[in-house]
Each structure stands twice: as structure tokens, then as C-alpha cells.
């Protein structure tokens, strides 16, 4: 199926809330997972008779397992606070991309089967039966949510659409309707060890190649160790860091930091992926299974610290969920936070004066920073709330001279999603991804025009891949996006060649 042509939204000098355009994105749907992909995760292969009751049954189960879902289903008053907060609504105008309307796709069914008012007065409260039409709407619009939580910042009750989307995807999976991109990747991570499906020999080969490249650049033996037993740190990083541009530049940056600070470290072929798509499909069991590889690998390699590379949703799972999923971590070095973000590690080393920089090396770059949604709104760095905003910016300022933030309301906890998160980074959703990037692109355009910004740093593999793809649609160069450790790697002082 070819992607139908679509028009890239025009960048406006200031944000404009679009008028409601009913059905504007009704055609946007991801590919459906094949029965084989579904079977690998233990999900039914396709919709079978009686799926309606099973879906409602699954909803009942989830309502009893997740307080978030139960409370969020009851608490919405339709105040509209969230209605202009979703980047997909701002980019498309489709009213079902307003968080409240997206939630209501499930709330209608919830009311019908689980509340007094919906059982007896369905029309009055907008309750709907679980029908194929409703399921089609779920499929369309729960695959137009990147689970970025921006709406939850503004909701007076803290209702988080991500929780509703995750529950909807879990329910759809449970009746045999799975999303190809996400579920195929989860299968790969179990079979091969990472989302990209890079086998161990190819990984070893790539790392050896990187050692040669860095040797050529610096004359130094900067190592990229794989499966090295007894290393102090195991680095868990998104597999895109091994093969994709600009991701690999950050991997080189991490390696140089470890080298300069004299910290022994290793990657793991078993846990060669920080990403955890179990989060995106709302499946606790998958999320735990994928996390468990990290624990097993760390124990096999007898490392003492866990450090996570530049990946937004992986950091959410690691920071907020690992202790629950695979903890406790009493077997690791308690002098360091478990897990620790690579930015936390680098920042600490900068504070201690353990690494130095030649900031002029980055003088050709005028830099801005894109807060990734899962880092901004679902995790932390350092010991202070909001450290996730301070630490990456302080690193950038320590390694480069020219930095400008994008405007308030588009950064920190109000940051806009790149448009490709939450399991939507697939070409079958390209139109959605391009349009969903609009708010971020407008904010970027402003700093480009005002300050001549030519580099947008991010700490998320999905953000980097998404921006590389959509920047050209808005007339920007795809190489404008890169990692924070890409900047670190360029400026770090490594000493003279031996």
C-alpha cells in the first residue's frame, strides 16, 4: 500500500489553534500485525466471533488492575483544558485527536457496560456499545496518540491519555488486533536481543569498526567493549545507536566520556536494546520480560552499575519502572543511582572536573534543545524535580558556546512530542508523523529565524529518527538533529595519542 499524497502544514510565525475538522485523519491507520507476529507475543491472531464480549471482559480486568484507568474513566468533566494541547490535534484539526475525545472513545464503552447511567441512559451520557465501528475508531485514533502525556500536564485531574491509549491497545491485542510495527519489534527483541534485529556478530563488527573510526579521528584507542565481564558499568542503549545516523555519533560520545573518565564499561549483546515497546502496547508482562534481559545480562557480566543511553521511553521504563519490574537493585553499587542516565553520569563527571572540553570545537553550531516527552513528563534526572530539564542543558552549555532555548510553552514539561513516539515511528503513519511535528517545527523555526539555530539536540532515539525524516518536509536540513553526546563527543578533551 503506497502512502497517499498529503500536504505538509504551513509553518506560521505564532501558534494558531486549528478549527475542528471532523474526520480529517480518519484514513490514517497503521498496518495490522499478522497472525504469526501476534502468536509470538501470545496474542490471538485475528478477530474471532465473540470478540466484543472478550474486549469488554478485558476492559473490566484492566479497570480492576489499574487505578489510573478506573479513576480517569470517571473523572473527566469535558472542560476542554486538554483540547488544544495534543500535537496531533494541532497538526491535523481532527477533533478525535483532542485528548478528551480520544479518551471518550473508550469512556463511551466504559459507561455502557460499567456504569449505572450508561446502562440505563446511554444517549444522555454518550455511552456506546462495543461494535466493529467503535473498534475501527479505536484502531484509528489510539494509533494516533504518542503517549507523550502533554495533556496530563494541563488536566485539572491529571488524567493521562497515555494510560487510556495503552489500555486500548492492550484490549485490542487481547482480541487479536495488533499493530504490526510495535508487535514485530517486540518479537525481535525476544528473538535477537534488540529492536533493529542486529545479531551479535554484526554488532561486534560494528563496534570494531567504530573503534577504528575513532582511532583514525583521534589517534587513541577508545574502546567499544561488548560482553566484557567484570566491567564497572553496563551501558544499555537504544539499538539505533549502533546503526543509525545521527544516533551513532552519541554512542561515540558515550565511549569517549568513559575513556576520558577512565571508567571501565561494556555493552551487552543480550541486552543490546534499551527500548521497551512493551510500554507502548500497555502490556505489563511484556514490559517486564523485556526489562528482565537487562538484569540477567548485568548479572552474567557481573557489572556494578547500570547506565542508560539517550532514549526517551527507555529512560521512563528504566527510571520509573525498573525498580518495580526487575528490582531491587541491592546487588549493584549503591553509591550511584540505579539506573543512571548517561547525562547524569556525564554531568557528574563535569561537576567533578573529571572531563574537560574544548568548547570551540562546537562553534559552528548554534544549538537548541528538544525536551523528549518521556524524559520531561515521566521521569527525572538528578536529585531535584526538574533535573531532567537542567542537566542536559548544562551539559550542552559545558561543551558548546552557542545555545538558545525554544520558546516557553514548547519546552520543559510543556514540550511537544516529536510526532513519532509511542510506537508510531513507522512509514505507514508518515502523514500523521509529519503533521504531528508541526508544533515543534514552528518553535524550531522561531529560533532558526531569531538566532540562526542550526542544530537541535535531543536525547531520544525516536526523536532523532523522527526528526531526520520530517525536518525536510518543513524545509530544514535533516542533519540539524543530533544527540547531546554527539556534541559532548566532539568537544571532549581526550589527551594526546600514545
Amino acid at each position, binding site marked *: 500500500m503506497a502512502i497517499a499524497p498529503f500536504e505538509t502544514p504551513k509553518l506560521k510565525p505564532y501558534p494558531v*489553534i486549528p*478549527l475542528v475538522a471532523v474526520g480529517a485523519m480518519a484514513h490514517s491507520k497503521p498496518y495490522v500485525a499478522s497472525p504469526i507476529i501476534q502468536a509470538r507475543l501470545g496474542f490471538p491472531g485475528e478477530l474471532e466471533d465473540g470478540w466484543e464480549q472478550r474486549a469488554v471482559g478485558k476492559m473490566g480486568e484492566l*479497570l*480492576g488492575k*489499574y*487505578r*489510573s484507568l*478506573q*479513576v*480517569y474513566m*470517571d*473523572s*473527566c*468533566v*469535558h*472542560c*476542554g*483544558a*486538554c*483540547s*488544544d494541547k495534543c500535537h496531533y490535534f494541532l497538526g491535523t484539526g481532527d*477533533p478525535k485527536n*483532542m485528548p478528551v*475525545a480520544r479518551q*471518550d472513545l473508550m469512556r463511551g464503552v466504559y459507561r455502557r457496560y460499567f*456504569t*449505572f*447511567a450508561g446502562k440505563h441512559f446511554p*444517549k*444522555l451520557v454518550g455511552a456506546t456499545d462495543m461494535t466493529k465501528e467503535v473498534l475501527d475508531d479505536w484502531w484509528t485514533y489510539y494509533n494516533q496518540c504518542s503517549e507523550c502525556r502533554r495533556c*496530563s*500536564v*494541563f*488536566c*485539572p*485531574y*491529571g*488524567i*493521562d491519555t497515555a*494510560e487510556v491509549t495503552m489500555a486500548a491497545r492492550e484490549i485490542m491485542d487481547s482480541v487479536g488486533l495488533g499493530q504490526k510495527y510495535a508487535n514485530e519489534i517486540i518479537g525481535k527483541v525476544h528473538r535477537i536481543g534488540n529492536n533493529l534485529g542486529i545479531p551479535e556478530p554484526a554488532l561486534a563488527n560494528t563496534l570494531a569498526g567504530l573503534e577504528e573510526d575513532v582511532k583514525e579521528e583521534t589517534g587513541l584507542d577508545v574502546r567499544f567493549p561488548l560482553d566484557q565481564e567484570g566491567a564497572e558499568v553496563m551501558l544499555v542503549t537504544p539499538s539505533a545507536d549502533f546503526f543509525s545516523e545521527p544516533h551513532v555519533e552519541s554512542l561515540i560520545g558515550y565511549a569517549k566520556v568513559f575513556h576520558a573518565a577512565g571508567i571501565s564499561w561494556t555493552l551487552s549483546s543480550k541486552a543490546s536494546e534499551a527500548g521497551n515497546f512493551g510500554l507502548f502496547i500497555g502490556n*505489563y508482562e511484556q514490559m*517486564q520480560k523485556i526489562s*528482565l534481559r537487562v*538484569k540477567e545480562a548485568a548479572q552474567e557480566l557481573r557489572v556494578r552499575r547500570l547506565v542508560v543511553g539517550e532514549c526517551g521511553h527507555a529512560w521512563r521504563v528504566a*527510571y520509573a*519502572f525498573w*525498580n*518495580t519490574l*526487575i*528490582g531491587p537493585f541491592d546487588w549493584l553499587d549503591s553509591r550511584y*543511582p540505579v539506573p543512571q542516565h548517561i547525562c547524569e553520569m556525564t554531568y557528574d563527571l563535569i561537576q567533578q572536573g573529571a572531563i574537560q572540553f574544548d568548547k570551540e570545537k562546537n562553534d559552528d553550531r548554534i544549538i537548541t534543545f528538544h525536551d523528549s516527552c518521556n524524559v520531561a*513528563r*515521566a*521521569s*527525572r534526572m538528578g*536529585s531535584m*524535580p526538574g533535573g*531532567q*530539564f537542567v542537566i542536559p542543558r548544562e551539559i550542552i552549555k559545558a561543551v558548546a558556546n552557542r545555545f538558545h532555548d525554544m520558546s516557553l510553552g514548547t519546552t520543559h*514539561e510543556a514540550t511537544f512530542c516529536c510526532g513519532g513516539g509511542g510506537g508510531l515511528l513507522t512509514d505507514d503513519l508518515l502523514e500523521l508523523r509529519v503533521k504531528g511535528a508541526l508544533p515543534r517545527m514552528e518553535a524550531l523555526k522561531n529560533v532558526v529565524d531569531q538566532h540562526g539555530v542550526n542544530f537541535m539536540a535531543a536525547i531520544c532515539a525516536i526523536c532523532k529518527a523522527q526528526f531526520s525524516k520530517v525536518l525536510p518536509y518543513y524545509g530544514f536540513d535533516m542533519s540539524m538533529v543530533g544527540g547531546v553526546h554527539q556534541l559532548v563527543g566532539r568537544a571532549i578533551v581526550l589527551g594526546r595519542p600514545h
Partner: protein
Amino acid sequence: MSLLSIAYAALFYLATAVLVVGVALKIRRYAGVPAPLLIPTTPAPTTTTGVALRMTREVVFFESLFKASKWTWIFGWLFHAALVLVLLRHLRYFQQPVWTPVVWVQAFGLYAGFAMVAGLAGLWARRFLVDRVRYISTPSDHLHLALLIAIGLTGLGMRFVAPTDIVAVKAFMLGLMRLDVQPLPADPLLLLHLALVALLMLVFPISKLLHAPGLFFSPGRNQADNSREVRHLAAWAAVYDKQK
């Protein structure tokens, strides 16, 4: 004793029972369903005290709504703050002697009646004027606003247009609390006002009015951001914990 007084007494006993039992059951449900993962919307406080402060700002000032939409915040906060004063003012019907703070609040509570209706009118106007809010509004959203405005207007009507015998009303209410039904004045405005209030109490536990208890149980707001320091484990998730 008139049939009317007995009917209204019965109505209020029923409405009170539904309100109290209904909300209690909902709270039991919210408290009983586990929160398996830590999902506070960050940046979030790292301590319980911090969470209490965040929740207080949310309950008293509608902090998040303020960030979201100034118009909705103005009308919403005005309505809720006025409602609190109006409810406090009405406490005098249930107390003898009347608490001093309730005496103090009488003058404010009177003007709050207007503020309450103004806030509700603003909130209702948004449902017609803002296309996004128009799109999401259901018949029940409009009816909730109509109900609250009607309660406010009938109340103001009794104060400024057609006064009722409030001494008798107070005797009726105090009687209800002693299970001793007293005669209720048969003024149409009063009967309408009371019937609408009873209706509001009846729909509370089965409607979006549950946002009031819901906020306190919202994991996005009531959890501390301490996932690395404290291990958080819910009962059903502990089963998976053992399998690993």
C-alpha cells in the same frame, strides 16, 4: 403533617443515602484498585509532604487548569469558590446554635450566589462558543450546568424576589436530622430549589461529579516521584515478580 412535607423528607433521606453510600462505594473502589506502576506527571514532588502541597494547590487553586486555559480557569474557579461559600452559608439551616464562622460567611455567601451563577454561565457559554468544547459536549454536560444554574437562580429568587419562611425551612431541616418531620412551606420556588438539590445529590455518584473524589486518587497527581529510592509493588504485579 402534609403529604408534601413527608414526600420531601423521604426524598432527602433517599438522596442523602444515595450520595453518601454511592460516593463511599466509589471511594472504596478507587482505593481498592491497585496502581502497579509509578506514573506521576513529572516534574513531581519527591516526598509525601510535597505531594500534599501539590494536591492542595490543585484542589484550592486549580493549578493545572490555570496553566491550560485562563478563561476556563476564571469561570471554573469562580463557580467552585462561590459554591463553597454558598454551601457554608447554607450550613445555618442545619445548626442550632450556628457556628461563628458560618455567621461570618453569611454576607459573602449572599454575593457568592451571583458569582456562582456567573461562573456557571461562563462555563456554559464556552460549550456553545468554542468549537472544540462544543464538539465534546454531551447532553449530560449541558444538563449538569442547567441543573446547577437552576439551583442558583431559584436560591437567589427566594432571597431577592419571593422570600420564603426560612424559619420554617430551618425547622424542617433540623427535624430531618432528628428523624422528626416538620412542616415544609409550600412555596413553589422553595420546592423547586429543594427538588433540584436532591436531584444533584442523586446523580452525584453516577456522573462526572465524581471528579471531586477522583482527583484525590489520580496517580498522575498523588504519587511521589521516588521510583529509584523506594521499590513500589502492587499485589497482582508481585505475581510476576516471583516468576522472574
